[in-house]
């Protein structure tokens, strides 16, 4: 049984917005001389409209996690594990690579990595958009529950494993066992798929899919032609128990 949680999409009310005079403020944090915990606390205290620049990230873990305001954060360099995890509303750009678990459990907003992301990118994401210009490692979008993911390069094995909702767009190739045990989720792959996982099949690319794929590519700032992609999704054969399989258990 799949339980979907609606992404947090409401922004601050008009009154609140009017009260945040510092909404045009920009801040910068150099992590060479200040702890990640302080950065994250400052981002939790931040209000809508603020813009933050983080320098000298040095591959540190848990950068910009738990953002829950409409802020813009730019990380100038490579991030470690779990960057922009549990993200809501805001916009995080990492000008570099990201480690394991990028934007894990993202609820809304946008996370953009200009380089590569390691394994489990956007794992369990409920909403929002994750854009990876380079390659993503294994298990990209594992157990995704509504997030949209656009990867400019390739994705590793076991991506979209047990995916439940959302869209995954891959402009390069997909590794082994794409969409294994998938419930729902639309998977669009431009290149080759090493193999499809259990219950994941190729499906026709109709006008509605071309339209939504075009929108996703545009949202990710890409110029790929939607017609060059193939669509994959759930055969829905694993939703119910088949008595013929009883001896397998």
């Amino acid at each position, binding site marked *: 049984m799949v339980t979907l949680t609606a992404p947090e999409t409401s922004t601050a009310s008009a009154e609140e917005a009017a009260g945040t005079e510092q909404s045009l403020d920009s801040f910068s944090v150099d992590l060479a001389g200040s702890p990640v915990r302080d950065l994250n606390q400052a981002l939790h205290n931040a209000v809508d409209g603020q813009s933050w620049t983080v320098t000298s990230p040095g*591959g540190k873990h848990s950068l910009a996690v738990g953002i829950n305001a409409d802020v813009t954060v730019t990380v100038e360099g*490579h991030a470690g594990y779990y960057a922009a995890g549990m993200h809501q509303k805001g916009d995080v750009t990492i000008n570099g690579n990201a*480690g394991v678990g990028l934007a894990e459990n993202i609820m809304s907003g946008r996370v953009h990595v200009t380089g590569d992301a390691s394994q489990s990118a956007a794992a369990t994401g409920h909403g929002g958009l994750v854009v990876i210009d380079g390659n993503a490692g294994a298990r990209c979008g594992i157990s995704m529950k509504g997030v949209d993911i656009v990867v400019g390069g390739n994705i590793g094995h076991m991506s979209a494993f047990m995916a439940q909702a959302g869209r995954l767009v891959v402009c390069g190739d997909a590794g082994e066992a794409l969409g294994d045990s998938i419930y729902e989720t639309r998977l669009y792959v431009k290149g080759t798929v090493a193999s499809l996982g259990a219950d994941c099949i190729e499906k026709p690319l109709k006008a509605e899919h071309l339209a939504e794929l075009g929108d996703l590519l545009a949202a990710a700032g890409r110029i790929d032609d939607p017609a060059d992609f193939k669509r994959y999704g759930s055969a829905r054969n694993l939703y119910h128990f088949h008595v013929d399989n009883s001896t397998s258990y």
Partner: protein
Amino acid sequence: MCGIAALQLRNPLLHPQMGSLLSSMMCQIVDRGPDSAGLAVYNTPGLVSEGTSTLSLLGKDQGLPVAEIQLAIAGMLPSDAAAVVRVVGDTTLVSAAVGTDLLVKVVSETLPAATIIGRGEHVAVMKSVGHPMEIAAEHGLEAMAGSQGLSHTRMATESAVTAGGSHPFSVADDLCLVHNGSFSNHATIRRSLLREGVVFDSDNDTEVGARYVASRLQQGDTLEEALVNLGKVFDGFYTLVVTTADSMAVVRDPIACKPAIIAETDDYVAMASEYRALAALPGIEKARIFEPEPGKVYTWSL
């Protein structure tokens, strides 16, 4: 979880900085394995020298005064072998201008209780229990020059926290292996290697991997072939780094649960468990940075 940091210096001008660079990398992987650690350094002046075999023995106290050990070993070797025994940190190094097999025989007879943790013409291996950076400092890593360096910080899972269970495992001349992960069928492979006459020093799963690679190399495999064969025989989780006198190899298991990241420039190849260990390397902003693909063997030679 364990931490790995490895460095192969292609540019000889960087050799004097080998220890300080490896130390800065190791500092960032301590969190991954704080219980014990080990180091392997290649072509480090003062520890090894060309034309001389060096054995690394676990522990600084071998039960006899150093001068006495040196005298005993020298007495059993040809007069021109120039045997030298030194203590570096918590490690005893025995060097002589003879083949490693002869040196191993003589050291084993002189110090029957000693554990040989490294052997060869080019490598010195140092390991101990405790905070990795204290172990590195005790051995003077910061000031060491060299062509290659390998470090491991251990969080023990498959066998006890002992110096002997620390990595690297160096079981053939100039060959070292470190491991992040765990082999699940190591006992089975250990039994088949025992039947082939291989002798083990510890109960550690990684030692089985090292003994297997050494056995394959002895049978004529290249380093790459040996690691491909390891992938066919060993089950479990692993990111491995293997070094020889002039090569470094990295391989991850096909499931790729354990991390690895590589930075390559004209000056060096560096591998670490996490990017933060590479962040302070010179010229890192222009390095080719990538994660090794699952199940693929990467090798680099000097």
